[in-house]
């Protein structure tokens, strides 16, 4: 939606523009993204996102790492939700090795990924509140997230880079005490979601700042290749957990929240609704946690998958994370390409920021919930 059209335009009447760097160091670019904005007054006439400030070249490094060592580097892509990164890589490698994780490991993978989705959406909720100017939801969201991190610490020993999902299964087991604490967290978390609705989702100023801003119709979203809550915010019902279920997602019943107009508020509210669905999934998974061992048999310490190519993609918190893995029979992957959802979601900024005000830039950029670790890899 163009918030403001210059009323009088024509040759010789153009407003003189000013180039502003929403530079690599800016409170609300969620990391190191540089937005080159050409401003006419407060209205943007041209936007040029410049990325690469966190490009660490992990795709090149993985060509000299064994498969177990590559799992460690996958945590650092989308560091707000590291579990789906591990899962995507392990699924691709397992496809190459034609290995299937045992049922208990698959259930644990679902539980940890969904808890990680809740934790990642809580980070989004907090930082998006700060972008729009409300500082307090950040603290409440991080208080709940701390409880999830306690659960992860007890299970995998780490708070952010878990390295928990390994080739062929998961690293450690869950005991009665952990499941009791997980259920206690879920009980504690449900009323908190209603509290966020009153605190932020239906706050009139928040609605004024986000409803009807940055509207993306369904076709444009598909044309730009958006995925995850950004695509579902525009109404396109595409969720990898439903279209190509992995790790037993077809056994849990959950519905995929959709937005109507694709505005910033719809993308925001899709994520809040997704947290409710993740709570349902974790409860169902905890209830039906099968017994059995954690690791598939026959995974060597230095695996050499047969030559071939495999593509596996999962519904990460920020979109459709895909790993294209090529093996030439060696101990290291021959080529690994990451289909990073944040990298592709970010490209649309060049198009929809034109005609917006500076305050809308921050609202729109925040609503895409990008993580620079995944954009630059």
């Amino acid at each position: 939606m163009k918030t403001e059209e210059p009323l009088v335009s024509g040759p010789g009447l153009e407003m003189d523009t000013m180039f502003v760097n929403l530079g690599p160091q800016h409170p609300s670019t969620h990391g190191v993204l540089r937005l080159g904005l050409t401003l006419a007054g407060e209205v943007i006439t041209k936007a040029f996102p410049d990325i690469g400030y966190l490009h660490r070249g992990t795709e090149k490094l993985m060509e000299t790492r064994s498969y177990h060592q590559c799992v460690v580097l996958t945590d650092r892509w989308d560091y707000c939700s590291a579990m789906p990164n591990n899962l995507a890589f392990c699924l691709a490698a397992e496809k190459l090795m034609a290995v299937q994780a045992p049922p208990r490991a698959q259930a644990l993978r679902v539980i940890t990924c969904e808890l990680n989705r809740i934790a990642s959406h809580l980070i989004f909720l907090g930082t998006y509140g700060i972008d729009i100017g409300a500082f307090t939801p950040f603290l409440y969201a991080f208080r709940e997230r701390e409880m999830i991190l306690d659960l992860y610490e007890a299970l995998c020993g780490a708070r952010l880079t878990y390295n928990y999902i390994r080739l062929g299964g998961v690293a450690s087991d869950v005991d009665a005490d952990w499941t009791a604490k997980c259920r206690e967290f879920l009980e504690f978390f449900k009323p908190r979601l209603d509290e966020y609705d009153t605190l932020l989702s239906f706050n009139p100023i928040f609605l004024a700042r986000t409803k009807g801003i940055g509207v993306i119709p369904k076709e444009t979203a598909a044309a730009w290749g958006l995925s995850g809550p950004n695509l579902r915010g525009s109404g396109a019902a595409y969720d990898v957990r439903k279209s190509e279920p992995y790790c037993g997602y077809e056994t849990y019943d959950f519905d995929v929240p959709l937005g109507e107009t694709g505005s910033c508020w719809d993308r925001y509210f899709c994520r809040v609704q997704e947290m409710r669905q993740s709570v349902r999934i974790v409860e169902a998974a905890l209830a039906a946690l099968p017994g059995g061992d954690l690791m598939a048999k026959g995974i060597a310490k230095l695996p050499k998958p047969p030559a071939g190519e495999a593509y596996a993609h999962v519904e990460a918190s920020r979109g459709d994370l895909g790993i294209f893995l090529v093996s030439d029979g060696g101990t290291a992957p021959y080529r690994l390409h990451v289909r990073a959802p944040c990298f592709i979601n970010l490209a649309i900024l060049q198009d929809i920021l034109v005609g917006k005000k500076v305050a809308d830039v921050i609202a729109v950029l925040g609503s895409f919930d990008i993580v620079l670790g995944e954009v630059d890899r």
Partner: protein
Amino acid sequence: MGIVLDKFPVVAKAVPGGQVLLTSTDYIVDLGRKYSVWPLTFGLACCAIEMMVAYAGRFDFDRFGVIPRPSPRQADLLLIAGTVTKKMAAPIVEIYHQMPEPRFVIAMGSCASCGGPYYDSYSVVKGVDRIVPVDVYVPGCPPRPEALIYGFMELQKKIMGMKLERGGGATAQAEKGSRDLTGEAA
């Protein structure tokens, strides 16, 4: 408009009871700097999330008087939280020089200290001390918020050791490597 205390040590030494005056001024000034270190809101990678958690409710950096300031002009501490890539190196040096003296740098995480898991990457600067003088290194990938707060308290100890005779921390330091703030190493 701030008070300039560079000449004060010389004057204080001339006055008979000056040494006591000088040490007590040192103490007050260092106490002021110690309890109001304002970092820059500047997160690069995964360590930035742990830094945000350190600001949030459970580990509450505000207990030590820390307010994250968005502008380098008002910041005392440059907290490098994440991997320093070659493309980001020039902006970091520029931001460091925009900060008014006395300024401090904490290299948070193994990426900022020595390149970490990306020790052989073509686009990573192997440690931020190659481009900016660093006061405290916090190991970990990412370091826990308690580790960051412990590193911060180490910086506070270093600040308490600063002397006005040595320019109160505002003396020009070597532009690379770890920084000797209090002159003990000499």
